[in-house]
């Protein structure tokens, strides 16, 4: 009887098929989900003698299909020419109401609503020698009714994308006062 207790050879760990069903070690390490951090402004690179820093190519217009297709064309052109495209985003649509004055009377009535769409393609580290070529190609392929604007990216441009939080600002003002 004591023999059975002594003869404890745990063969299963030395079996060649030990651990045959293991897969957990193959999955990617799932980090614990962290809370969303406040979106920091990326460091805006300064321009050097041969390269521009960060440029914003803004395409705006009333016709959405034209604006959208033109911005896609710019994006594809830049990636084809190996120009680094940081981001490609859209700014909120602005609606303009066209009011027409009535002939007999002082009241204005609504004639129509015009929506201005805007798309921005952000380019960084663009060589100064390549810039004139790119600018010329963009200008020559600009469709009718679409405005093109190339300007440098600033902190103010980045902040303009966020919505204002009036309650938070009111509370902060109250705390300070």
């Amino acid at each position: 009887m004591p023999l059975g207790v002594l003869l404890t050879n745990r063969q299963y760990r030395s079996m060649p098929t030990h651990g045959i069903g293991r897969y957990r070690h193959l999955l990617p390490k799932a980090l614990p989900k962290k809370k969303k951090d406040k979106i920091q402004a990326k460091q805006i690179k300064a321009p050097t003698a041969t390269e521009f820093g960060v440029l914003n190519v803004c395409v705006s217009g009333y016709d959405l299909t034209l604006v959208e297709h033109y911005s896609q064309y710019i994006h594809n052109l830049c990636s084809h020419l190996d120009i680094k495209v940081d981001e490609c985003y859209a700014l909120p649509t602005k609606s303009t109401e066209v009011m027409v004055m009535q002939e007999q009377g002082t009241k204005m009535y609504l004639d129509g609503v015009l929506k201005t769409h805007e798309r921005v393609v952000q380019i960084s580290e663009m060589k100064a020698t390549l810039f004139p070529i790119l600018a010329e190609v963009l200008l020559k392929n600009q469709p009718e009714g679409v405005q093109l604007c190339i300007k440098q990216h600033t902190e103010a441009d980045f902040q303009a994308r966020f919505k204002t939080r009036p309650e938070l600002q009111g509370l902060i003002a109250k705390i300070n006062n």
Partner: protein
Amino acid sequence: MAAPFTRVYRPLWRIITTTTSNGRVRNVSYTRQQWSAQNVKTAGAAASPWALHGAVCVQRLPVVSQDRSPIEEKFMELMQQMELERSLLADHELKLLDDAARMSRKQEEDYDSDEEEDYKDKEIVTAQDLEDVWEQKLKEFQPAPRTQGVNQKDVSSSERCLADSLILLVKKDIGSQKLWLLPQIQWQMGETLRQTAERALASLPGADLKATFLGNAPCGFYKYKYPKDIQKEGTVGAKVFFFKAVLSSHKHLPLEKNSFAWVKKDELQDFLKPEYLKQVRRFIMAL
């Protein structure tokens, strides 16, 4: 696309790494001049035997889009038809159908207007009335004409061929001959080549052209040797650097017919000499 640059590109990189940048220099041509100036200082009074010129390639960009070819027209119609067939009805079209159904119901004898829902304001203005008003307004609208009425062959007007981009050429006398060239002027000490090009544009007699320069880097290069009799000691010939600019003001002052020309890319060969044309063609895009 990098082809027009291979000539100028390599020496520029060398300069940027060797000379220290001067403060606010974004100006590649500025450091180039620095390099040649340094050369002058080190080698004594041995100036380069080539005279430098700055030239400007002013382009009037196309104002209207190009006309479609027959195949493009047919394809466009086909795509529009397909899109129409696949689309859903808009709010306006639904209202039209509703109004038509209501009309037909009104004609019947056992019509009871109290049974209608949401009927209050639509009695006054139906969707069809709105559509008629809109059609009227559309008929009153006159779009601008596409050609502006200028003769397409009149080379001195900058309003010709609104669908293509035009380049400005001037007739200048070089040596003993009168030649058509891009506006160019000699470089002076102490200015960048881009400023030379701006000066070349401003010095054109009679024309008040405002142009935006696209960059500090030249887009092309041409060198020619002076004929033997003009070659003084030291100067072998001239090197011309071209800069690109886009016409910004559209003032049409009447330019003298024989000295200015606005030409398309394929008309360049009627005006320029073959060697010059070969270099100029490399950087002009006919898109």
